[in-house]
């Protein structure tokens, strides 16, 4: 018997964005292709959705 709550599962489109930054271990920060820190580009952060509540719930319990 399928638990009641699972009747309300909906498919979720997986985000296909490739994150346009990579981790720099000595700076301990993610860096954009042009060498600026990822946090310098707030529009990009909003667009990739990495910091949003839904993104969190997909990857982690504590959204």
């Amino acid at each position, binding site marked *: 018997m399928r*638990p*009641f*709550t699972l009747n309300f599962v909906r498919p979720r489109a997986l985000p296909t964005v490739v994150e346009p930054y990579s*981790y720099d271990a000595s700076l301990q920060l993610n860096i954009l292709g042009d060498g600026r*820190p990822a946090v310098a580009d707030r529009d990009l952060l909003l667009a990739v959705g990495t*910091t*949003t509540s839904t*993104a969190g719930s997909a990857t982690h319990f504590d959204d």
Partner: protein
Amino acid sequence: MTVLILTSEQDVTADMVVAELNRLGVPVMRLDPADIPGKAKLSADYAHGDFDGHLSVHGHVLSMGGLRSVWVRRPGEPAAHAPEPSAWLTAETKQALYGMLYSASTAWMNHPGNAEQARHKPWQLRLAHYSDFAVPPTIFTTAPRLAQQFAETYRDVVVKSASGPPPDDPEAALPTTLIGPDADFSTVAAGPALLQRYVPKRADIRLTCVGERQFAARKRSAPGQVDGRYGETGHPWEAVPVPDRIAKSALEYLSLSGLAYAAFDFAEDEEGVWWFLECNQGGQFGFVELETQQPIAEAVALWLSWRRTDRRVPTPPWLPGDRG
């Protein structure tokens, strides 16, 4: 004195705090427990009645005597990146790492013992009662008859999960869903169901608490919208003042739960009452800061870098002394 951030490399929300710590000139080490053993190294010794320990990663070294605070953000499972990962290796590595950090005298955002308890939604509702929040009537039950009765009493009720969507299916979402008393409740017997009275909602509220600092944000709902996270409304998150009564309750909740950080979700009804829905002990804040310009990352950095005279973490009275 160094701030330790436990999180994954891809976590750009942690970047926002690292950048603030850099600006404040506070030393920081960022480490993913998944990288122990391997990229990150650990040793702790207990001899002659004394203790010291060290962590190192990518040339950064941290001694436990120089540890100011620990921010548990989005850490990987210990040893997850090891060449031959196993449940046993994770358990051993967890013992070594968290055992060492618990041995140090440091401030935690949040202490894993408190975090673990704080994740339980039924307990959150009880703590919300004690903190004098308005809490919608809620039932957790495996009894179909009681679920049915609850829905008949309150008519419009929502179903949601306590732990999130099934973790083994990345394509599954489990949005809060509105149902009525006509639903078939028989399968409630197959797994505990969480039903709550529907709050006719004007807006979703997110209250982010960093120690004693509080940041409230509000997002208007579309007519008839249930789960604020699904469906574009065109309404942005906007900064709003924290009502005095809510501020007092939130402080009480943090103190009762032993949490240094928490992100509360509320539903604002037509009278303007903020109904407590949940308290996320590690809730995301990047999206709020980016939309409202509230300086949350800075507040986290300041809390972590604060010099404390007494750095012991108080144990709430109901937490067992031995956290196993």
